[in-house]
């Protein structure tokens, strides 16, 4: 498997082994193994409903696995106390599919909320500086006093990413970053993901079913089908596979784009 040179091959920031998760009779994850190196972008590709979002919610500790082992930044997620999990989450950024911006707050309040709540000793000037820095990073300074309802889908995604960046995370988890966006805005978001990786030195897991997003953001692609990873490698390696399911996924994307 090819790993780009800028990625630390020594240090795995996420290690997942034998992960199982079911919802009633629906066995979503059936023995998932995955690791993420420091400063690497891994794209998890798969059809809707294959458990991609469930996987990153388990990594973030939002869902509990039925079986398996998850280590994030050297910590076993399933064995952490509430306070230890909170400390770990300060190093994790989670960009939600629908942005999950707080409706009742302005963009500024959305951005400063994680900072204000987690670091109560910070002075107003320090908070303002941090807010200006992240909103500049996503190129939306002009929206600072707007309400989330006044933003477009692409702007909401960018503000969602900015809100996670304010805590300076080491790992970013993107849930369908380009879902529901037009092709041009999708390219902007893909560029933003790469920019975040370079500027903030993050390692990322990007959940998507968008091949353009996978190709332009992923150092490595992991194909999730029927609850297991059937192929991992570079984009070209994965889609050079003889597996009919992977071929049909590729064809389907291009026919329907």
């Amino acid at each position, binding site marked *: 498997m090819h790993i780009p040179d800028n990625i630390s091959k020594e240090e795995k920031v996420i290690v997942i082994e034998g992960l199982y998760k079911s919802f009633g009779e629906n066995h979503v994850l059936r023995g998932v193994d995955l690791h993420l190196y420091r400063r690497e972008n891994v794209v998890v590709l798969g059809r809707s409903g294959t458990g991609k979002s469930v996987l990153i919610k388990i990594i973030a500790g939002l869902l509990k696995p039925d*079986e398996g082992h998850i280590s994030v930044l050297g910590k076993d997620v399933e064995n952490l106390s509430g306070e230890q999990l909170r400390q770990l989450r300060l190093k994790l950024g989670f960009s939600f599919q629908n942005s*999950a911006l707080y409706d009742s707050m302005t963009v500024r309040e959305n951005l400063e909320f994680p900072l204000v709540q987690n670091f109560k000793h910070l002075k107003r000037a320090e908070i303002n500086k941090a807010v200006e820095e992240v909103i500049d990073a996503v190129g939306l300074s002009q929206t600072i006093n707007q309400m989330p309802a006044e933003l477009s889908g692409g702007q909401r995604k960018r503000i969602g990413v900015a809100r996670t960046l304010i805590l300076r995370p080491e790992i970013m988890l993107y849930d369908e970053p380009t879902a529901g966006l037009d092709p041009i805005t999708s390219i902007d978001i893909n560029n933003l993901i790469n920019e975040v990786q370079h500027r903030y030195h993050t390692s990322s897991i990007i959940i998507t079913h968008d091949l353009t997003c996978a190709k332009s953001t992923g150092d490595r692609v992991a194909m999730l089908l029927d609850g297991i990873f059937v192929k991992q490698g570079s984009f070209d390696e994965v889609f050079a596979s003889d597996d009919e399911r992977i071929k049909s996924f590729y064809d389907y994307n291009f026919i329907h784009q």
Partner: protein
Amino acid sequence: MNGNTGASYKPGKISRFFLHVYHAFAFVMRFFREAFLPPFHFKEFIRQCYNIGYRSLPLISITGFITGLVFTKQSRPSLADFGATSWLPSLVSIAIVRALAPLVTALICAGKVGSNIGAELGSMKVTEQIDAMEVSAINPYKYLVITRVLATTLMLPLLMFYTAFVGMMGSYLDVHANEQTSFISFFESAFSSINFLDYWASIVKALVYGFTISMVGSYKGFHASNGTTGVGQAANSAVVTSMFLIFIEEIIIVQISNFLRGGA
């Protein structure tokens, strides 16, 4: 390896009911575990006090005033039959302080505050805003639930006293119009029939009702699912469940206060 551990178990109707009760109980117990430990979200608590208390005043004023006025009007003919209309201030004050003010305030707040909490938290749940809070290392239970529960529990007794006051004013208006009773003699007569236990029983009732309304609203909101339909269901269920619980609690508290009063 078997990946079905536990998760594929499908509970029956009765098991589901007890599971539901267990989850509700755990949700309430979490309040007592976390409410008095830092961090405290004082600003959010004040904001909720303003929303729940101050913003309920117009509705409470109208309903309280009408309750006092109508109760007096309805009671007059029965007392007039015995030539006992002078007892109206005492009768009304006992009825308002002991029963009507806590109950009317609670029912109004169940409709206004309970549904608001259920819908707001339900909407935050289905749009993943609660998850977003959690992954930002913020405890959503402390920030959203504890602040609302404390604010409602504190505001309900204050609103209850306000309801009692405007209810008495409504009653006074009617008594004054019919019997030309002065303001001072009306309130002297009214307060002479209320004792310390009446006030305390009403304060306890209001505290319990406030806790119930906000806890039920928060629980329903936190467990909302199925998109916008789920939000509507959470709001509706918050009102229905809290009203039902308020009546059950009313019976229990009345029995206890009557026992303490030495009656049946």
